């Protein structure tokens, strides 16, 4: 069977005429390189299969399977509600505290997991870097993309929780897709930068869990942004995720929008994504030599 096929292929190949210009040219790249979107498109199937691998592997050989996606934010929400909502009586902008905490935890859990797996994605797959070529950017992209699956599950539960608490849907819900895209871009930007840095400096691997832990306190998840004194609110706005998390609460729970904070967060997100992508491309050429 193989030989018959090979014969057919040989006929095809006999007709192969050399193109006038090279299909691939290899030469040292200049300092500032293009993003090479064409290659990203050519290798899009790799992104699909890497994402699919991450999703499939994630809960293999676990007893609870995909339920783990829900357990993490759910238990955190219960503990937060008990200690911060009940005992410490932290205000929550008039929203029931469990709903308030969970609506912050959904995007946060996605972001934290995405950045942590994205940031470690390159050093976790050294043979993909030293043995084969495809745009390396796809590896952190797949790690972040795979997290969207868990995000969908936890988000579905958020909608259930909202209906249990009798939250009415408003037109603001239309902002949710925009927020999801921005959150993904933010996680992706940070992942690209950390993954590239991680190849060269393994310090990143150790700093990452710690930074993520700190990030949770720098983001209004346990507390509302309104708890921060007005003259210090701008410090919080520097953290783009803060604006996005508040955005989710405005879109879903009908709390008023802080448009200035939202626009600042969106701007920071987009700029940091583009800068990270370029930094990644610049560092990419040395990956195979230093990983």
């Amino acid at each position, binding site marked *: *069977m*193989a*030989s018959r*096929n*090979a*014969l057919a*292929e*040989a006929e095809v*190949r*006999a007709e*192969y005429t*050399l*193109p006038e210009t*090279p*299909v*691939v*040219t*290899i*030469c*040292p*790249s200049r300092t500032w390189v293009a993003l090479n979107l064409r290659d990203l498109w050519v*290798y899009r*199937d*790799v992104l*699909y*299969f*890497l994402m*699919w*691998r991450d999703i*499939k*592997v994630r809960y*293999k*050989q676990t007893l609870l399977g995909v339920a783990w996606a829900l357990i993490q934010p759910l238990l955190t929400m219960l503990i937060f509600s008990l200690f911060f909502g009940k005992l410490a009586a932290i205000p929550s902008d008039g929203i029931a505290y469990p709903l308030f905490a969970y609506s912050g935890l959904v995007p946060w859990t996605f972001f934290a997991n995405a950045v942590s797996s994205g940031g470690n994605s390159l050093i976790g*797959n050294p*043979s*993909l*870097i*030293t*043995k*084969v*070529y*495809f745009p390396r950017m796809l590896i952190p992209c797949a790690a972040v993309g795979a997290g969207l699956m868990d995000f969908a599950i936890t988000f579905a539960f958020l909608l259930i929780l909202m209906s249990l608490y009798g939250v009415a849907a408003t037109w603001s819900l239309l902002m949710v897709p925009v927020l999801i895209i921005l959150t993904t871009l933010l996680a992706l930007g940070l992942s690209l930068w950390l993954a590239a840095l991680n190849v*060269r*400096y*393994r*310090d990143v691997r150790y700093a990452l869990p710690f930074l993520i832990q700190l990030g949770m306190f720098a983001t209004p998840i346990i507390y509302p942004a309104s708890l921060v004194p007005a003259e210090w609110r701008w410090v919080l706005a520097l953290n783009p995720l803060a604006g996005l998390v508040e955005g989710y609460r405005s879109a879903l729970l009908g709390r008023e929008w802080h448009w200035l904070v939202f626009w600042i967060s969106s701007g920071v997100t987009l700029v940091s994504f583009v800068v990270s992508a370029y930094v990644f491309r610049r560092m990419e*050429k*040395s990956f*195979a*030599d*230093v*990983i």
Partner: protein
Amino acid sequence: MRPIIKVEHLSKQYHLGTRAAQSGAVRYVTLRESLVEALRASFRRLGGQKRPPMETIWALDDVSFTVMPGEVIGIIGRSGSGKSTLLKVLSRVTEPTSGRVELYGRVTSLLEVGTGFHPDLTGRENIQLNGAILGMRRREIEQKFDEIVAFAEMERFLDTPVKHYSSGMYLRLAFSVGAHLNPNILIVDEVLAVGDASFQLKCLGMMNEVTRDGRTVVLVSHDMSTIAQTCHSVVLLQDGRVERIGPAKDVVDYYLYNVLLPTMGTRHETAALENA
């Protein structure tokens, strides 16, 4: 006829200490070291001193050659002569320091069998993943799927996670995916010697078929008999430079008698090597 691969003045420099493969020991630079080095460098600049030269090595040094369509070219040389670096540059895994390569066709490289294989995924899932990583489109994988499975003799274990495979089965499956790629240019590092004897024969047969039907192949191997049998011409590398280039038999003979022989004991051993 125009060449399908043009390699022009290709050079690749490594800094000793940052080259991971050097002496087998993997060395990482920590952030602290880099910061300290950056501080030192700025102090030196203030003091008008130059940076001490870093020890470097030219893994490839002004390498030029061309390959015609349908030609099977072997790359030989002692270990450390730059063969692997050349393949890595041709496969776009690492960038050259200077020089240029032009490839006039779709390239696939097999520097390792089973790149991206995940132990927890089944044989079926790994075929799809590995195929995509090696540059196959999703539809192409579907089309060739049965053929790949049949070649690997793997029908019964398709839905078993590959971590339960024997190492021979694993390699067979991995090689089978690589053998069914359909590029214009195929770049292969010594991945032929996998599996048991009967499967090795099958692989060699496949290789011969592939090379006979007009595909351009760049092949690195330590096995001189494979090289002499399958290649039309051979490039001999030594210390990163092209030592000799020409018809396979001539260059292999030159390599055996003028490069290997002086480092080996007796003529007897070389003869044994040649007959191997």
